[in-house]
């Protein structure tokens, strides 16, 4: 986590006590033309381009109330500044949860997670925040509060601003309140893991998983030093290039059955030794998997999105560029997070723009930079090149934030 003061040119920070006060602050800023930098727990502030215009910090941490939690409707309405940990605790009391993992849950806020569309390993079995936000309130760049969606799980009235604002990096509005669809928390959870001698073997297993009789909660392909010595997984066998950890959740009987079934499916593919992780070790691995993307020291952390079948090729490329990189791939979804160990300013155009971005584009996706200590990265380096769609994003931005005061200069818009 980067200190707030380091990453943003803040003149002052406001912490409004309620949504009306927050709207008033933005309205004042609009009149003055002052940039507004929304702040949650400050855990993802190095995501996006560096801000250049001085402005005010607008912390949502004063907005952390649970507004309504009708547990039997499996929905919850909360203010956006609630931390992920507090939300999780509230839901746990009813044996429910929001199966979205973010690093540093005790300070990361729900609003921040939504604004950055953060996701973790459970996205394979449970989807991402876009599947859970069913109602949203926000304050636009003119200081006008607005909302969309509602509190019911099925609702098609009006435009779906829940989707528009999820992942908008606070550039269309400051999110103040959210209604979520939630799920029952499964009673059983375990991992089956194996060590792989090469990446083609990994692709063979991943392709087979698509037709597995089991229904995994997470499919994680892991490589690099971080995972070689992971305590929960145990030491990797000699000659291991990557490790595959498949999370299995459900009723205890289901988990037991899936562990046996998957082990036998793997055996038929020539994987003779697999490890079962349950209880404490499973908990530890879930936690390690959740925390991985946050790295205080790495020179560069990227996230690639690809069609899943290209995952291992991309991992191979990343390891060629930096053999010491640590990699976590949500392989079932084609999401690859690479934490480089050695990456210099000169590598940005050579490797990031020159090799990684084209490889991801060829696989139907793109690369974004999650964080970097390199500084001065361009829009092209952080978000990849503009597409025809980018212009339409800018059109929406201009409507919601006509003076461009919300997180200015940090997202991928062009020509504002």
């Amino acid at each position: 986590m980067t200190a707030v003061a380091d990453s943003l040119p803040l003149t002052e920070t406001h912490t409004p006590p309620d949504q009306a006060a927050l709207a008033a602050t933005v309205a004042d800023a609009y009149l003055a033309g002052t940039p507004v930098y929304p702040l949650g727990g400050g855990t993802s502030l190095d995501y996006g381009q560096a801000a250049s215009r001085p402005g005010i910090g607008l912390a949502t941490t004063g907005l952390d109330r649970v507004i309504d939690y009708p547990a039997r409707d499996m929905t919850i309405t909360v203010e956006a500044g609630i931390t992920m940990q507090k939300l999780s605790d509230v839901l746990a009391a009813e044996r429910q949860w929001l199966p979205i993992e973010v690093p540093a849950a005790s300070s990361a806020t729900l609003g921040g997670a939504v604004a950055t569309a953060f996701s973790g390993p459970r996205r394979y079995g449970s989807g991402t925040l876009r599947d859970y936000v069913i109602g949203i309130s926000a304050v636009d760049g003119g200081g006008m509060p607005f909302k969309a969606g509602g509190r019911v799980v099925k609702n098609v009235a009006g435009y779906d601003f829940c989707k528009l604002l999820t992942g908008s990096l606070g550039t269309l509005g400051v999110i103040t309140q959210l209604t979520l669809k939630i799920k029952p928390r499964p009673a059983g959870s375990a991992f089956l893991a194996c060590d792989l001698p090469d990446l083609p073997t990994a692709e063979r297993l991943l392709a087979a998983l698509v037709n597995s009789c089991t229904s995994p909660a997470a499919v994680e392909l892991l490589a690099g030093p971080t995972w070689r010595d992971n305590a929960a997984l145990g030491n990797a066998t000699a000659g291991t290039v990557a490790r595959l950890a498949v999370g299995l959740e459900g009723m205890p009987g289901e988990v037991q059955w899936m562990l046996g079934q998957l082990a036998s499916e793997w055996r038929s593919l020539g994987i003779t030794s697999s490890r079962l992780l349950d209880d404490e070790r499973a908990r530890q691995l879930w936690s390690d998997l959740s925390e991985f993307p946050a790295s205080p020291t790495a020179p560069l952390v990227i996230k690639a999105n690809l069609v899943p079948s290209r995952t291992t090729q991309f991992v191979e490329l990343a390891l060629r560029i930096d053999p010491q990189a640590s990699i976590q791939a949500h392989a079932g979804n084609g999401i690859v997070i690479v934490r480089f160990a050695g990456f210099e300013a000169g590598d940005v155009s050579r490797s990031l723009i020159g090799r990684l971005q084209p490889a991801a584009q060829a696989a139907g996706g793109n690369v974004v930079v999650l964080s970097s200590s390199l500084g001065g990265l361009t829009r092209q380096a952080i978000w990849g090149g503009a597409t025809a769609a980018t212009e339409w994003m800018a059109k929406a931005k201009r409507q919601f934030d006509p003076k461009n005061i919300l997180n200015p200069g940090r997202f991928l818009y062009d020509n504002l």
Partner: protein
Amino acid sequence: MISSALLSVVDELQAAVGRENVLAAHAELVVYECDGFVIEKNCPDVVVFPRSTEDVAKIVRICNSADVPFLPRGAGTSLAGGCLPVGGGVLIVLTRMKQILEINLRDRYAVVQPGVVNVWLTNALKGTGYHYAPDPSSQGACTIGGNVATNSGGPHTLKYGVTVNHTLGIEAVMADGTIVQFGGPAEDPTGLDLTGVLVGSEGTLAVVTKVWVRLTRNPEGVRTMLGIFDSAEDATNAISEIIGAGIVPAALEMMDQGILVAIEAAFHFGFPLDAQAILLIEVDGLEAGLDAERDKIIELCLKCQAREVRQARDAAERLLLWKCRKQAFGAVGRLSPSYCTQDGVVPRTKLPHILRCIQAIGQKYDVRIVNVFHAGDGNIHPILLFDERDHAQVERVLAASGEILEECIACGGSVTGEHGIGVEKISFMRKLFNDNDLAAMERMRLAFNPHNRLSPGKMLPTAGACGLEQKHPGRRAAL
């Protein structure tokens, strides 16, 4: 009649896409004056059938240069007037763009043109172990393009979600005629989730020309149960108990006594006619867990005073049960010469309350109301029975419908769970949203559709669409 400006549009369209893909004779346009919503009608001036994305772009550009309104249409099964050519103009009918372009099982997606009928995709996937999850009851006819426009649901959305949860990307022709791809085969495209905004935008932001959809693995097993209750209250309590126990059924549908009588007459399933409510409950997933879930559900139903819980013995019986449910509306024709239905949503725990209200409203207006609905989602479809030749009755039905929807809003719900706003429910938008909310939506439309030539008069109660003064309830069959 056709103005000279339109005549030149017709010429240009014919030159652009071929004479055989343009209809301009009044006799051939009449069938396009409405969709599944028949209260309001308006003939388009021209109907055009594009065969490619490029055709759509050409059509849109022609409309723009002539300043003529235009809008897309799929199969025309909208129940809210989503395909009504409010301002006349050019109706872009996408039924000739009906190719399944790609099926990729390794990467779990398919690419389809907008005119592909929902069930064609699932048929094409037979034997692969995969299916396309959104299954609106009209899936045998409605197109995936239309599903995207309205963010369609269906009985299995309780567990699997609605169309937007299965849409990875969209290629669209924007209101200015440019072709843009949002998202694609990979998840998490960079930037704003405009795919998510286009889904459910009811054709007011762009014309969808290609869709990347997520494919879903077929569940290993399924258990379908029928809970029979002596009171609707007990049945709704059972719903609450099942969900409260942490079970998310694949589907959870409720039918009350009124509709049971009609269904039994049509399908002879053997429903007890004196039951006050039945729940159709389906759980799916791993065989390893299903029997335990089934036993728990049976136990909870019995705890809520269920008279009996039956289990579908085989696939044929399960299909028949679903046929009873999916075609329930058709069977209503046996109860009454006319009927209309609503699409309200309430929080699940408010179901007992809304059912009591519906009953009271029925008594107040002397209108017979029967119920069949997606109970798990709190998505109610009360069916109001009447005789359209009796004008006083028609008035009462309209008033009762309005009151039911008002009560849904008062419960914290919505006036549409899956049919869309279209033109039918525009007048309710002001009750669901305040001026700020609507202004934000209006700006979204301005961003994408600044001249409002694309689908004017739809969804938002602004820009000349003040909402319909309903004089006549619709008779609708498909839910």
